[in-house]
Each structure stands twice: as structure tokens, then as C-alpha cells.
């Protein structure tokens, strides 16, 4: 049955994109948990991941792995600077969440425009990180880059799980997400953990950007679309739950892929937003979230 095989093929491809959305969504959750802020500059980490890797690889002729590492470092630096220069001063002035969220959106725009000035508006792409032929799983063809995305995403999710349950810092970050005042009373330096949260989500965002670039392309203005998909995925998963967010990403990727095959590529955003609306109406707490009263 070629139709069934084709469907399966689209499911696999969709899940690959979904992993990337899931990683972006995890980035939203990590910062939200540590600080209560929805960081709309998340997309700029994703964009920088791809663009900086490309620039280091293309212009400086660095090996791909080194270029990728460089891009992660640049994104982490941007994340920590966003916290130190934008979020923390506002925090000390007891700014409202609305102000903080707008400030992160401003960071997104500034980074996007600076990138445009520095590298221009040409779309750029990367060669596959593993250069070998596609993997054949029975009738399904698994692109190596998609397989690589699966592997790295799952490793990252497992690593994060260990970090949040087994390490003192990870547990303290969870404690902050439950009750920041009570955490501070235990001697936990809440603002330092917010900085760790920004660094961690910037790294995850950059990795997502690096992973996705070989399968499509990247450009200075690709941060926002990824941020929107990641944001939707985070809501689907139950905002604040990193593992729910990853599942939300998978769900969103598969939905978009199926919409593309059934109704054409133009409808994928229609279906993304439709899924979001359905969730907001029927299950506003998301897949793994707990209802807020």
C-alpha cells in the first residue's frame, strides 16, 4: 500500500521537524520556570544557531562541529546578556510581566536587525552533519539528518530530565518554578538560577537552529516563525512542563506534515493554529500541564 507508506513517511518527517519545535518549546519552559517570564527572544537563539554556524563554517572555514560549538557559545552569551542587561534591571524595578515580555520582544528585534546588517539577507544552508546516504527502515526512507535530529533531541531531553531530577542546581530550578520566595528562604540564589535558565535555553535554542538548518535553510528573519511554533508547542504541552513541551512539539510537527500532505503546504499554519485553538478551548492546561486555578 503506497498510500500507507507515504503517510508513515510524512509522519516521520513531521516528527523530525516536531523535535526541533519541541526543543524551542523546552527553551521557553526553562526560562518560564526559573523566572515566570515568557522570553520572546527565544527565536533569536534558534536563528543565531544556524546563522553563526554557517558564518563560521563558510567564512572562516572552520570544521562544522567547531562552528556549531561556536554558535552555541554565541547564543549562550546572548542569553546571559539578555538576562543581565534587560531582565534583571527590570526585575529590580519590579516591572510587570507585560513589560518584561515586551522587553524580550525588543531583544528579538534588535538581534534580528543586527544579524541582517552583519550577514545580509541571503538564505543560507549547511551540509548535513552526518554525510552518508539515507537510512532505509523497511519501506520508509529516513534522511540521516532527520535521524540525527531524533537522536540529539532525545539525548537532550533525557539529559535535561537527569539535570532537573538529579542535580542540586536542577532541583533548585524546579523549586524556583514552584515558589521563588520559598526557594530564596532556603538560600537558593534565585537570580543566578534565572541566568542559568537563560544560558540553558539559549544553548537548547541554538542546537535546535543548528539541527534544522541542513534540512531547510536559515536566514536573519527565521527566528520568529520558529519561536511561534515553539510557543504553540509549549502551550500544547502545558506551559512550564519541558517534557510536555517536547511532546507538544512532536504533535505540532506531525500536524503540519499531515496538513501539508492532505491539503497542501499553504494550510500548515492554519492547522497549527487550529490545533492551538482546540487545545485552548478543550484542554487549556495542555498535555502534561496541571490546571491553574
Amino acid at each position: 500500500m503506497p498510500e500507507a507508506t507515504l503517510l508513515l513517511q510524512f509522519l516521520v518527517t513531521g516528527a523530525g521537524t516536531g523535535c526541533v519545535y519541541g526543543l524551542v518549546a523546552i527553551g521557553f519552559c526553562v526560562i518560564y520556570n526559573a523566572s515566570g517570564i515568557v522570553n520572546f527572544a527565544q527565536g533569536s537563539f534558534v536563528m543565531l544557531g544556524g546563522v553563526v554556524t554557517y558564518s563560521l563554517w563558510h567564512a572562516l572555514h572552520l570544521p562544522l562541529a567547531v562552528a556549531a560549538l561556536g554558535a552555541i557559545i554565541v547564543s549562550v552569551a546572548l542569553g546571559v546578556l539578555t538576562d543581565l542587561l534587560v531582565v534583571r534591571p527590570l526585575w529590580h524595578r519590579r516591572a510587570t510581566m507585560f513589560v518584561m515580555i515586551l522587553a524580550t520582544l525588543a531583544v528579538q528585534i534588535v538581534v534580528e536587525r543586527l544579524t541582517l546588517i552583519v550577514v545580509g539577507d541571503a538564505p543560507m544552508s549547511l551540509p548535513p552533519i552526518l554525510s552518508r546516504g539515507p537510512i532505509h527502515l523497511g519501506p520508509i526512507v529516513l534522511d540521516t539528518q532527520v535521524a540525527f535530529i531524533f537522536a540529539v533531541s532525545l539525548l537532550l531531553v533525557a539529559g535535561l530530565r537527569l539535570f532537573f531530577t538529579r542535580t542540586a542546581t536542577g532541583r533548585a530550578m524546579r523549586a524556583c518554578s514552584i515558589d521563588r520566595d520559598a526557594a530564596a528562604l532556603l538560600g537558593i540564589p534565585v537570580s543566578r538560577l534565572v541566568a542559568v535558565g537563560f544560558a540553558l535555553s539559549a544553548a537548547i535554542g541554538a542546537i535546535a537552529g543548528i539541527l534544522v538548518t541542513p534540512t531547510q535553510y536559515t536566514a536573519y528573519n527565521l527566528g520568529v516563525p520558529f519561536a511561534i511554533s515553539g510557543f504553540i508547542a509549549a502551550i500544547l504541552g502545558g506551559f512550564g512542563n519541558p517534557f510536555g513541551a517536547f511532546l507538544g512539539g512532536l504533535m505540532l510537527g506531525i500536524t503540519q506534515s499531515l496538513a501539508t500532505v492532505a491539503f497542501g503546504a499553504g494550510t500548515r499554519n492554519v492547522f497549527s493554529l487550529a490545533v492551538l485553538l482546540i487545545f485552548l478551548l478543550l484542554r487549556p492546561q495542555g498535555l502534561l500541564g496541571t490546571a491553574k486555578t
Partner: protein
Amino acid sequence: MTALLELQGLHACYGQVEALHGVDLSVGAGEMVAVLGPNGAGKSTLLRAVMGQVATAGSIRFEGASVAYAPTHRRAALGMVMVPEGRGIFGPMTVDENLSLGGWTQRGCVAAQRGRVLDLFPRLRERLGQLAGSLSGGEQQMLAIGRAMMMQPRLLMLDEPSLGLAPRLAAAILEALGELNRNGLGILLVEQRAPLALRLARRAYVLRLGNVVAQTQPGETLTQDQLGRLYLA
């Protein structure tokens, strides 16, 4: 000898509203001091002010050194430990995780301290793997105090530890505090149930509308009559 905690002319504000109007208070080493007063007197605000969780003016000295400008977590690391109103338990985390978070400032000697805490509250030993949110009110209070003890406090401050507990449980909790105090721990206890607190504390301050309106000397007790007048006047 320097006092463990010394407050002089302490003011505290929530935005434009001043909730404490110049409070003087001290807790000596190894002393248990009670703060009494009706609802809205500023008792909780007093503890929040000592920990730097509200904007303050005035002097806050801990073991002789000013901490008025230190952030909350640094005060906690010095050994100023507060169990907040509502206990501040991390409900979605296990009892064990809650306890180990209490060891954040004391990394290195967590295991030994954990043993002492579980000896003080054996009930917690049976519940280590359980989610803290699923504990009964009394057990949650034990966990809150146990978690605070993980920090090896020099001064333990408690905001209404008996709140919402059956009288017998409340008495058991206060009994445990009495034992900690006999072992030399300085305690500042905020309580609405004055008789319970007065049975244990060496001295008491009575707070009303953000001012200290009365304080007792060691050995001196307040009669029901005096108390009633202080609360209602």
C-alpha cells in the same frame, strides 16, 4: 554579648503602604521569643522584613553585623532561617527532594543533618518518596521545620506554625520547637495562639497595627486579661 537578632526602628512597606512603623526587637543567643498580636498587626510582615522580602528602612543586625542590604538568599546562608506562612513546601516534589533542597547552603554535610532531622520527625522517614503536597497539614509543617533544620540555622523564625492544625498536633509541633530551643537554638516565633506560644517563649512582644505595644520580661507572664486588652484595645 551581642544579640542574635537585633532590630532597631524597623519600617516595612508594601508599595506606598507602611506596615511596620519603627519596631525594636531583639532575640538573644539560645533564646525563644514570641511575637503575638491580632490579624493584620504586621507579624508576618516583621518576619518578611527580617528576611528582606519586603522593602525596609531601619537597622537589622544579625550576630552584630548589619544585613539590611543583603539579599534574602544571603541572609539565609548566614543561618537566618524562616519557615514562611503557608509553610513554603514544594508540593510537586518529594519529601526527600524538599529536604535536600534545605541542604543547599550546607552541601557536604547533608547526610548527617538529614539523619538528625529524621530522628526529630520520624514520621517523615516513612514518607521520603511521597510528594510533599500529599502530606497532611501536620506532616507538611514537620517537613517545613525539618527542611529548615537542614540549613543548620542559628536563628529559626516561624510564622504561625500551628495554623490550621488540630490542637494536639499544634502542641506536638511546638513541643518539638521547645526541644530545639533547649538544645541551644534561637527561635523567633510568630503565633496567634498566645497561650501556646507563651508556655514556651522566654519573652514576648505584642504587635498591633505595626507597632510594638507591649513586651514581657523573662519570667513575667501575661494574664488572660492583659492579653485580651492588648488584642482588643
